């Protein structure tokens, strides 16, 4: 679904052939993946298709970001809520919603029309809402056990930050739809702010939050492997660079932030590898996978950083355009 060179490449107005080729590939893959029918005629853009704008390109990148996050949440909540025996019917919600968000993201990635897609928009809104409600559930779950809000329960009850990942996916999707709507020739905005800045700050904030979650769980694991410091150093530092680039501008700040986002994206992927190794270090290792997938470090979570880094890269494209 993701082609890294494409994602990491800064987009320019009047895109070059390489970007178009890559997008064409993505779109082919995406149409193969989706089972949804073609966009209904009413929702299809009016008039002859214009050359795709940078804004739509960024919107599509955001769809990739929201998709990666949704995929991470889908697999993670499937594992964790299965571990919790789906004790509460509401525990199915993140599975359903993240599946929808994933589908909408794939659809959006393949769709280069500069217009809001109502169904997608609804799904992303729902997704963001689910994340907020889920956070409420998790907060309640932590405090509801003996001892209330003490370290023990933050460590071992429902992970307090996890539902925010799906909320972020929803917000990124929502931003993507807002971006597409940008009239030609006007600077893109999000919720009344300059789009590049808004997306950068939101991404930086999300990275900080996700870092908090990683810190809590890696602290529980006592940072017993030095690589466990990766997600609590690289992403927040990169987030800070991104915020800096957004607030103060300048090509060198943007390059630094871009390097940070690339590092964060790679760290997310590497994290999956480390977590797989972590499973191997549990009693019985992979031979005992039915237990250790549940009790070992969660394999699906580190790519959430990759998803956020993709959003950061999209933000950098927008910043670049703004500053140029």
């Amino acid at each position: 679904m993701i082609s890294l060179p494409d994602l990491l490449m800064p987009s320019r107005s009047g895109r070059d052939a390489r970007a178009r080729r890559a997008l064409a590939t993505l779109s082919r893959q995406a149409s193969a993946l989706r089972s949804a029918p073609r966009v209904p005629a009413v929702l299809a853009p009016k008039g002859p298709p214009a050359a795709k704008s940078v804004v739509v390109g960024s919107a599509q990148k955001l769809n990739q970001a929201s998709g990666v996050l949704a995929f991470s949440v889908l697999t993670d909540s499937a594992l964790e809520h299965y571990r919790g025996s789906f004790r509460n019917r509401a525990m199915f919600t993140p599975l359903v919603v993240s599946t929808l968000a994933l589908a909408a993201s794939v659809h959006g990635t393949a769709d280069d029309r500069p217009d809001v897609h109502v169904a997608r928009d609804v799904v992303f809104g729902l997704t963001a809402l689910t994340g907020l409600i889920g956070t409420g559930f998790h907060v309640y779950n932590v405090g509801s056990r003996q001892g209330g809000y003490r370290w023990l329960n933050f460590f071992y009850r429902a992970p307090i930050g996890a539902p925010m990942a799906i909320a972020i996916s929803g917000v990124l999707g929502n931003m993507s739809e807002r971006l597409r709507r940008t009239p030609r020739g006007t600077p893109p905005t999000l919720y009344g702010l300059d789009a590049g800045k808004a997306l950068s700050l939101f991404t930086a904030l999300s990275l900080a939050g996700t870092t908090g979650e990683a810190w809590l769980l890696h602290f529980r694991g006592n940072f017993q492997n030095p690589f466990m410091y990766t997600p609590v150093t690289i992403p927040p530092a990169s987030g800070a660079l991104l915020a800096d680039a957004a607030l103060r501008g300048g090509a060198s700040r943007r390059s630094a932030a871009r390097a940070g986002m690339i590092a964060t994206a790679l760290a997310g992927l590497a994290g999956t590898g480390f977590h797989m190794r972590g499973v191997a270090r549990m009693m019985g290792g992979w031979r005992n996978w039915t237990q250790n997938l549940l009790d070992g470090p969660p394999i699906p979570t580190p790519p959430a950083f990759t998803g956020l880094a993709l959003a950061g890269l999209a933000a950098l494209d927008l910043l670049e355009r703004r500053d140029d």
Partner: protein
Amino acid sequence: MSDKILTNREPLRSGLDLEAMHRPRARNGRAPDPHVPGGWFPMREHREDEAVDFAIVGTGAGGGVLAARLAEMGFSVVAFDAGPYFRPLEDFASDETAQSQLFWTDRRVTDGENPLKLGSNNSGKAVGGSTVHYAMVALRQRPESFRSRTKQGFGADWPVDWREMWHYYAEAEEALKISGPISYPWGPSRPRYPYRQHDLNAAALTLAKGAEKLGIKWTETPLATLSAPRGKSPPCVYRGFCRVGCSTNAKQSMLVTFIPRAIKAGAEVRDLAMVGRIETDKQGLATGLHYHRDGAWRFQRARNVVVAGYAIETPRLLLNSASDRHRHGLANSSGLVGKYLMTQSNVAVWGEMDEEVRWNKGPPSLAITEHWNYDDSKDFFGGYIHMSQGPLPVEWASVHTGARGLWGKALQDEMAKYNHMVGLKMVGEMMPQERNTVTLADEEDQYGLKVARVTYSWCDNDKAMIEHSLDFMGRQLEASGARNVWRQPDDTNHLAGTARMGDNRRTSVVDTNCRSWDVPNLFVCDGSVFPTTGGVNPSLTIQALALRTADRIQALARRGEL
């Protein structure tokens, strides 16, 4: 004997590897690596006719730590243990009865008004000692416990400052990667535990609930089992077989921590090697020890001897080593070897919950309160902790058949409630009394050595403490919602005393360096040096003392006083 068993391949009575129990494994320059199935460490070996710097008797909480530290300091060390060298990953069965091989079940005689029940609850016979099957509760004694006589008005003072002990506690906790709460609610501040606390099982949550109802503090128990991976040890899998040996190596016993350290640093470990006598020369100095291995008595020469066989075997060995110069036993000019034996009270209350608890899941004591160690408004001396419980089925059945005398249908009915049971058990400080002793009986064991006679009687203070704890724990259990609460008023566990340390050669067996007052090249390094036993489980204190003793020995050596 060993050949017969090996060639006959008799049906295994236990799940344990019989070979390990009849043929030494640590030999020919290698010793088992407990973390790798079939794996070995290279091991340095020492000649018997060349005096090693230290010959250590026992490889448990005291001996295991000391062997590693002395070897790391560059001394030549041979550590002997009467027990086998197990490979937990391969040898340990998930079967309570099979695992009884871990206990010291050699013949002993018990008497007194309250004879001790010896075996599973208070002994170990293996490389790694009792820590191979201990419950891993790793606590510090409160500062005042080291000055019981001056600060609290009973027992005797330790010849060690509490701050020094607390320094070594931190070192021991770090070495064992104790998993404990982020901040501990009682006593002076201590560093954060090296690993995070374990999650609580339902039995532990019951303790928490009751404690909160009664308005006392509780916390997650500091435990010597991992909450995250460490090297080749995986984190705990919460299956609850801890007290019959941990088959995953999550438990940070001496066998998987200090013993490998000792061997890597050049120490030699001799398993299935029962030491029967310490030899002394005309000047009264120790020259080495006689030990039984491979069906024969052998002699190892040594410049220094350390006894670390725990509170029954240590005095027994000293008494069995009497000579012309030491007529009443080695190191016994004070007449106190074998005296002031202490156990810890381990009484319990049990009750039923409506909901399923499954108390055996996880280490047995995941939650704790030290309230009655730190609250001084009591009508007795000393203090106690109490913790949540999770006995395994056979152990639980034996509580019914033993303490309650149930059998047949009544026993069956009780056992059917197993998954709904909860309990609280205390570990309480019993008073040091001169009349509680380890002496030699006339009987002999399989090696032809005189067996220990263990005499024990509770004093009024012990009884008052037991009554207090039963009453309080009963109220707490009821407050947590348990029904049909009943008492088990007679259990005891850990041992201490019998070679007490002190400032005065007339009132103690060893000095502050844990060195014998009488025999300057003889040390004691185990629970027997405790002048008082405190209201917490003893292993961490034994380990901290062993770390300290190693430093003391190094200092003595540097000053040329060894």
